[in-house]
């Protein structure tokens, strides 16, 4: 049976929708939804990824769908860029769906069947965002994605914090969507054709093009969580059930990256290097900001949400670099930076999903999200702990796992700049590299905190001794994502070859040396830089196992168990371990000006001494509070129009009518 790429993919998207609908057949039947529908969704995800990967090497296909308004049909297109993101969606969704099959239980909140519908509509809409080939279809899919994820975020809709998190999310999603609408409005360039093909051929003056670029950066940035429009992300992602958080952080943020790439690289053939510089700065600031805030969090899901902001910052700084080089006509370097950013997209989709799912298992087993009440779970939940270790090490950017590969590629693209023709860019690129290096090192700090406080040490609460390991479906989902982390780390050349199609399509250039072996990454020439993860991984495995065997053979393996030493202090309690606050304290100390800190310190005379520390985001005070105040003031100004008398309202209508008539006549 041969299915042409795009039909097959559309059929799979439809299959997701049908699976979702079937959930409604028996909304409360957990066995039907969990054991049948979610695994089916995972199979569809794998199939989607397979078709998308084969489409990466095929030529673009377009179709017109019999959907939409009478003279405004929906166009879809499958090219290398959309195939890459479809593969990303499929791979991550497969793991998350398998996990979700074992995760959702009956309880408060939305019924499982309804959840299944929302979940699969969410998946299908993300796939449609990536497939859309005109502004109309894109916006419909985009809004469907926002709405379905809003309902998923508010699964526990009776909790006030979750309600307000959902509101903030939908608000910023729509502010961003307005930016996108305006952006497409500018991009059509007076032709009033809203297909992407027409936009590619529209000729914009530099001023209009810059406006369209700025609107795209704002609109997609609001969805991706760029500073300063990031505030919804640390609220909404932790509020959702863990598989949904995994999808939102791991996959949905990438659709924003996709949109940004589609608009700036594909729809606008002319790039100005200043745009790249702007994106580089925004990305760098976002990355550092996310890492610093992640380091001081005490809620495990909020920590991961801030870490998503950090990773989005890293991705966008790579995109900024690619735009900058593209604007200066350096094809190969631009291709390297873009490949690095895309590689980080797919890496982040895997390890962030993995870690969010692991927090879900921890949450199920312990009922705790607060890092201060966890600890020692490696003894109670070994499966989750060891699989999460893979994600932790990958995200900390340690070789030979996947996080390191994209870090390596991105550093290479920072590094091999010949002298750039503009002195500002010449300074910006090394500074960007410095910020990036700092961000990545901070990420390792954050992840040691995350993993150490949750899984290592001693249980900080009595109740943790009753924690149980995850079920086999959950383990399967985690193992799938962990395996992808390892595979993406060990076989980067295969991924980079697949990315050649995307680079060729968007930049007309590919990475340097084509005659390389399949095990060694060589972006330019072999003298400049090369990295062979397989040799490297084998080297680590060999030297670790050799040292183990030699010590065992030459000496002995005798072990005596005893109480911990700890410099001879007796009566250790688990509360003497570092808390999450304690682990973040040095970061709070060093980066103090970044935080809005409210601290209540007890006096010596307090009968019930209490210490409280509240860290807040300064952007609330800098940006959001003034806007809220301005809206409030404006509303009060116009409120005098509203007098509550019908005669006055009729006068308004009459006046409006007169003015409109004056225009028409």
């Amino acid at each position, binding site marked *: 049976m041969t299915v042409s790429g795009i039909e097959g993919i559309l059929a799979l998207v439809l299959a997701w929708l049908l699976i979702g609908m079937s959930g409604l057949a028996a909304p409360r039947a957990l066995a039907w939804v969990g054991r049948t529908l979610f695994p089916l969704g995972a199979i569809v995800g794998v199939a989607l990824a397979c078709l998308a990967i084969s489409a990466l090497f095929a030529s673009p296909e377009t179709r017109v769908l019999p959907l939409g308004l009478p003279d405004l049909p929906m166009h879809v297109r499958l090219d290398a860029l959309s195939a890459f993101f479809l593969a990303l969606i499929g791979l991550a969704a497969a793991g998350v769906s398998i996990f979700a099959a074992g995760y959702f239980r009956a309880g408060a909140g939305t019924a499982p069947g309804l959840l299944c519908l929302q979940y699969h509509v969410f998946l299908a809409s993300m796939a449609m965002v990536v497939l859309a080939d005109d502004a109309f279809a894109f916006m419909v899919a985009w809004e469907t994605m926002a709405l379905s994820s809003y309902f998923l975020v508010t699964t526990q809709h009776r909790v006030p914090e979750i309600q307000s998190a959902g509101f903030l999310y939908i608000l910023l999603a729509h502010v961003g969507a307005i930016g996108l609408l305006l952006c497409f409005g500018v991009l059509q360039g007076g032709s009033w054709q809203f297909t992407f093909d027409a936009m590619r051929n529209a000729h914009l003056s530099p001023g209009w093009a810059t406006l369209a670029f700025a609107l795209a950066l704002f609109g997609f940035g609001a969805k991706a969580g760029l500073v300063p429009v990031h505030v919804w992300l640390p609220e909404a992602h932790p509020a959702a059930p863990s598989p949904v958080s995994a999808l939102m952080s791991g996959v949905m943020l990438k659709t924003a990256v996709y949109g940004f790439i589609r608009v700036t690289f594909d729809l606008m053939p002319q790039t100005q290097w200043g745009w790249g510089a702007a994106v580089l700065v925004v990305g760098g600031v976002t990355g550092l900001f996310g890492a610093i805030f992640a380091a001081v969090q005490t809620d495990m899901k909020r920590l991961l949400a801030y870490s998503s902001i950090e990773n989005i910052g890293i991705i966008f700084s790579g995109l900024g670099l690619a735009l900058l080089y593209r604007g200066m006509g350096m094809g190969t370097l631009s291709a390297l930076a873009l490949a690095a950013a895309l590689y980080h997209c797919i890496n982040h989709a895997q390890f962030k999903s993995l870690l969010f799912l692991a927090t879900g298992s921890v949450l199920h087993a312990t009922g705790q999200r607060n890092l201060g009440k966890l600890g020692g779970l490696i003894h109670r939940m070994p499966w989750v702990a060891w699989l999460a270790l893979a994600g932790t090490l990958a995200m900390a950017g340690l070789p030979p796992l996947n996080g390191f590969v994209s870090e390596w590629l991105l550093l290479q693209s920072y*590094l091999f700049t010949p002298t750039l023709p503009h002195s500002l860019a010449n300074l910006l690129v090394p500074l960007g590299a410095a910020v990036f290096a700092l961000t990545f090192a901070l990420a390792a700090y954050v992840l040691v905190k995350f993993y150490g406080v949750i899984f290592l040490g001693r249980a900080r609460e009595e109740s943790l001794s009753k924690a149980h390991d995850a079920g086999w479906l959950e383990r399967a989902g985690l193992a799938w994502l962990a395996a992808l982390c390892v595979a993406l780390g060990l076989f980067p050349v295969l991924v980079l070859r697949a990315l050649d199609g995307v680079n060729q399509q968007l930049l007309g250039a590919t990475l340097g040396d084509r005659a390389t072996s399949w095990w060694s990454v060589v972006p330019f020439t072999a003298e400049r830089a090369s990295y062979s993860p397989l040799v490297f991984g084998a080297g680590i495995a060999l030297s670790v*196992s050799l040292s183990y065997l030699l010590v065992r053979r030459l000496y002995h393996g005798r072990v*005596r168990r005893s109480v*911990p030493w700890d410099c001879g202090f007796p009566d250790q309690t688990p509360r003497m*371990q570092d808390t999450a606050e304690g682990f973040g304290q040095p970061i709070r100390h060093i980066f103090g000006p970044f935080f809005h800190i409210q601290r209540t310190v007890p006096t010596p005379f307090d009968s019930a001494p209490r210490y409280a520390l509240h860290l807040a985001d300064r952007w609330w005070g800098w940006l959001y509070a003034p806007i809220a105040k301005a809206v409030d003031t404006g509303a009060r100004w116009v409120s005098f129009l509203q007098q509550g008398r019908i005669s006055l309202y009729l006068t308004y209508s009459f006046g409006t009518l007169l003015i409109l008539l004056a225009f028409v006549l």
Partner: protein
Amino acid sequence: MISGSSLVALVQALLVIAAAPLLLGWVDQCRAWLQNRSGAGVLQPYRTLRKLLHKDAVVAHNASSLFRASPYVQFGAMALAATIIPVLSSRPLLATSADTIALVGLFAVARVFAALAGMDIGTAFGSLGARREMLVGFLSEPALLMVFFTASLLSQSTLLPTIVEVLAQRELAIYPSLAFAGVAFVMVLLAENARIPIDNPSTHLELTMIHEAMVLEYSARHLALIEWTAALRLLNYAAIGLALFVPFGLAKPTDGFTGLLVGTVLSVLKLAFVGAGLAVIETTSAKLRIFRAPEFLATAFLLAVLGLLVHQLLGS
């Protein structure tokens, strides 16, 4: 395929791993001389290792397997690093499989595993040490990376052998960017190897220690491996410093046996000089308060970035 040069490289790596405690012993001996003590001799680290390897390991009741695996991972990572860095000849074993960035990644592997193991038992000092180690690490790692970047921009390569060969061929002059990078590198070396002024390797004063706090729970063969890893780390860093800033005299693969011999003698002399210099620094400076450590490291980071910018602006 085992050619002559890869055999030399393998021997070099094994030699470095075996000789690493010697450098540590030499630094300690120099310190003893500077402080008017007679010292225990340069072979003392070997005696310590032998003693530790013969003892029974005492492991806390609630230690996980991560705790027991960690010393092997740290040692393995550091030993692998020794196959990347040119010490005696300029073509180490894994010359083309891993570059400077991968080397920094390898150091990070060792650091992360050490910190995770420190948190595993759940004692007060273990997690304190882990936190401080990561604090030192998150500032020194980017500084090291920036130092490598400066060298890479000068030589248009991130592969250490190429860097060394290019830098060794340039005429003898002071490059401003390398001068900044050199100072930054020395600061990173002191911090990463837990030397004064950041940490004191011979202290057991609980509240000030960093590295020692993290490894408090280890004993016997695990501790031996950790001590050996520390020695290896010091030698690796010293070799990196020599390769970047004094690359003259390293044997090239074409040099033949006499070249290799000359290179080896020169390298040993240079390492001895570095060890003595380290002892001087440690004897003449006092340990910083832990709160000052971030300032020290931030200075290192800024100097390294400055070196990079100077290169971009002046082109040298």
